[in-house]
């Protein structure tokens, strides 16, 4: 699945990757319906520094097919966990300048408590599990961001590996 500019809808909401600047106003407008009493928005923007180093720009890449699948699952989980009606998530890939948006999350629900909680959970969980990575270019060099450790049971401990003569039963 390749990154695309359009927004795809599913039962719970709309999840997509894009290489274009995120145009938030129409996305927010299309998320609300008559039964909603609250719309909570998270706009993640590129900061101008990381740990004192001045940022020039960020490059985001993704395992796109898996990232969309994971984001879709998170939207469904947010609905069942928090009871919100609609979730939109758009993550941008490619080169982003300082102050541009890397991610927009829009949650619409009948009540504000669930919308706030769902939105917080979504950004916190995306940051730990969705296969998207950023490389930061500073004034004095470029590095891949360290990344969040995967939750328990997700990473493979590759110091415990079988050699070629071992059978799977020994692992």
């Amino acid at each position, binding site marked *: 699945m390749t990154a695309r500019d359009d927004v795809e809808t599913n039962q719970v909401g709309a999840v997509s990757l894009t290489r274009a600047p995120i145009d938030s106003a129409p996305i927010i407008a299309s998320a609300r319906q008559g039964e909603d009493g609250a719309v909570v928005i998270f706009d*993640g923007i590129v900061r101008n520094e990381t740990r004192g180093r001045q940022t020039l720009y960020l490059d*985001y*890449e*993704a*395992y796109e*097919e*898996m*990232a969309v*699948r994971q984001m879709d699952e998170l939207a469904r989980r947010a609905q069942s966990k928090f009871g919100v009606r609609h979730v939109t998530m758009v*993550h941008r890939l490619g080169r982003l300048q300082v102050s541009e948006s*890397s*991610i927009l999350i829009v949650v619409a629900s009948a009540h504000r408590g669930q919308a706030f909680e769902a939105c917080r959970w979504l*950004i916190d969980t*995306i*940051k*730990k*599990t*969705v*296969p*998207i*990575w*950023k*490389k930061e270019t500073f004034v004095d060099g470029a590095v*891949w*961001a*360290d*990344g*969040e*450790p*995967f939750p328990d049971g*997700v*990473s*493979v*401990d*590759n*110091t*415990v*590996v*079988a*050699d*070629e003569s*071992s059978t*799977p039963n020994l*692992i």
Partner: protein
Amino acid sequence: MMVKVLFFGVLKEWLGAAESSVELQEGATVAQLIARLNALRPTPLQRGIAVSVNAEFASAIQVLHAGDEVGLLPPVSGG
């Protein structure tokens, strides 16, 4: 059997490429693939990576099949 291995983020620099085809014995596991990859380079893969098979998270003991697409995923930094 052949599997396709995708390297993401900083791991592209570890291998020097974004992807590689690897020949494995039938019934090989994710762990055995990692052992094979580690034998190719002077330093082993970093700890804390996740592995996907056909775009789903996989465990070290998962058995691979011909044509599988395996992703090596360093700790993520999206959002």
